[in-house]
């Protein structure tokens, strides 16, 4: 009996050890790289969303940045992510509709990319069809009107590249490249694209005094009877300047692009698109999901007197019957001045975000 007991005890000891022993020791660990969170974000809103299986690392961010600017992911090697998401435009472009590698265009304006780690619901694209930054990065590569490639080809091109296998090893501990790791790296880079140093941020931090016009504009922004912009576009305690959710903002009486409605299948969502952040408007024209407005003046005029009624229009759209609340020309000028105070030149010129290739 003692022999059997010894066997059982020794067996238990080995079985408890075996969990550790069968694991391949991972001696390589990339270097953690915490996000540089602006003080107002740290103070006022919840922590950014970073997937537990894709922590930020020095090597992962560097790889993602290189991939973001490398046309290797496209079908003919001519187009990178940055072609439609360039830093000088706060990571969108200046076209109404971006042009893909075959010269085709879609029907949506390229979205700017910044502060995406604070998109708590993690619904990406104008219509929210992708979940997570990693998930979002899957689509453009294989979209026939964008990069028009297949992931099989893209992965093979990366695998056969002189540098990438080593860079993937440095980032993820493996030189076997797949689409999951590619999107993880790109997402890591995109999470570093943080914009939080505009004139208005400095005003809130007490390091800069805004002009009277900018302050008047902020009052109009916050006034429910005038701009009432804050119900969708943030406030001093939501420095993202977006709610990251979906609204029908009265662009059309007859809705042809149903937006979120096509994703959810719910007719009540027809005509709803994600509220974009009001940060960096100085660099992100044209505006709206279909880039129909070339200037901020056109945008303000739309909300003031151009609203179109439709079955799913958001109740926040005021006085729809008369096209809007009709703020004065002087109020429009002030509102525009405030909106532009949310632009962050330091962000678009940040050397860490430029093309490394």
């Amino acid at each position, binding site marked *: *009996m*003692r022999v059997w*007991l010894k066997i059982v005890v020794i067996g238990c000891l080995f079985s408890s050890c075996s969990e550790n022993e069968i694991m391949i020791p991972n001696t390589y660990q990339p270097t953690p790289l915490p996000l540089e969170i602006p003080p107002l974000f740290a103070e*006022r*809103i*919840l922590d950014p969303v970073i997937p537990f299986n894709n922590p930020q690392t020095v090597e992962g961010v560097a790889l993602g940045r290189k991939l973001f600017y490398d046309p290797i992911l496209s079908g003919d090697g001519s187009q990178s992510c940055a072609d439609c998401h360039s830093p000088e435009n706060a990571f969108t472009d200046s076209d109404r509709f971006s042009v893909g590698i075959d010269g085709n265009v879609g029907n949506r304006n390229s979205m700017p990319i910044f502060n995406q780690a*604070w998109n*708590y*619901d993690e619904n990406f694209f104008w219509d929210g069809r992708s979940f997570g930054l990693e998930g979002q990065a899957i689509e453009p590569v294989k979209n026939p009107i964008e990069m028009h490639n297949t992931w099989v080809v893209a992965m093979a091109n990366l695998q056969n590249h002189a540098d990438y296998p080593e860079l993937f090893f440095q980032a993820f501990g493996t030189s076997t490249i797949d689409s999951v790791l590619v999107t993880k790296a790109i997402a890591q880079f995109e999470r570093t694209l943080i914009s939080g140093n505009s004139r208005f941020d400095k005003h809130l931090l007490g390091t800069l005094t805004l002009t009277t016009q900018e302050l008047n504009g902020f*009052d109009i922004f*916050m*006034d*429910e*009877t005038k701009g*009432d912009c*804050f*119900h*969708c576009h*943030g*406030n*001093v*305690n*939501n420095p*993202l300047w*977006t*709610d*990251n*959710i979906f609204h029908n903002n009265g662009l059309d009486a007859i809705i042809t692009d149903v937006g979120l409605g096509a994703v*959810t299948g*719910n007719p*009540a969502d027809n005509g709803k698109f994600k509220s974009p952040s009001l940060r960096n408007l100085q660099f992100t024209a044209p505006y709206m999901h279909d880039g129909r407005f070339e200037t901020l003046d056109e945008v303000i005029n739309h909300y003031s007197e151009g609203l179109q*009624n439709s079955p799913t*229009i*958001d*109740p*926040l*759209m*005021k*006085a*729809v*019957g008369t096209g809007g609340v009709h703020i004065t020309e002087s109020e429009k000028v002030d509102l525009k001045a405030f909106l532009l105070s949310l632009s962050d030149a330091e962000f678009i010129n940040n050397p860490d975000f430029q093309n490394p290739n």
Partner: protein
Amino acid sequence: MKILKSIIVLFILIFFIGCSEEEEKTSGDLQIGFTHKWDEIIFRPHTDIDNYYPAYNIDSLRITKLRYHISNIVLITEDGTEVFLKDYVLVSPLNSDAISSNNPPVDPLVPWLIEHSFNIPNVPFNDYRSLSFTFGFNETDNINGAYSNLNTSSLSWYWPEELGGGYHFLQLEGEYSNNSEESNFEYNMGKAKVSEGVFEPNSFNVHIYNPYFSFPHTSEISRTILIEMNLAEWFRDPTPWDLNIYNQNLMDNYDAQTIMNQNGRNVFSMSVTGIIDIN
């Protein structure tokens, strides 16, 4: 052999210790759920978004947004002892995330109509007689920007400083039809601005008496308190709400905020699911 005996004795001891802990259990999990209706019609988020309800002085209305928060939630025993449950909770039944997190319901006895619920662990067993909470925040708690999860972008829960600051208490929005003409309404509630720089807290206390609520329960099935909001009451009692007058831009409207405060006192009721001990 002695070792084997020792192991057996050890197992028996562990078994009995485990049993005795269960016998001494003095607290348990309590689920708080929220449900909404328009009088007798259950308000089902998403599927009922196109439902129109009759209301005072208009043809009908439909609701496209409903969010509110309650705070300082306590259970009260017959002798007046208060058991604190939660500091605050935001209820957002039309928010798809909130729905997905509670779908399917964790408790098989909880009806499907619960749109939002949360669990309170370690609630002391006792005979409770009522539930009390504040609708919104009281003046002390309604601190501008103090709650980072209420600052969360998707809520737009901020109440402008020019109107007294703090947070919204309620966002009830939709569309109403009158003489076949459709218009939007925003029934937004928060601090009431009396005059420039003078504000009233505008929150109110809700005290719901329920004579049949006994906790503990006799099985492992968790008990659920259902807080029910009758949306019709916001538009009815004691002051009939005329959407032709009060439809938009109400945050800065003292009269409208006052009526919301009065009407809101009648919107809540409560029931208890699970095994109910009737004393």
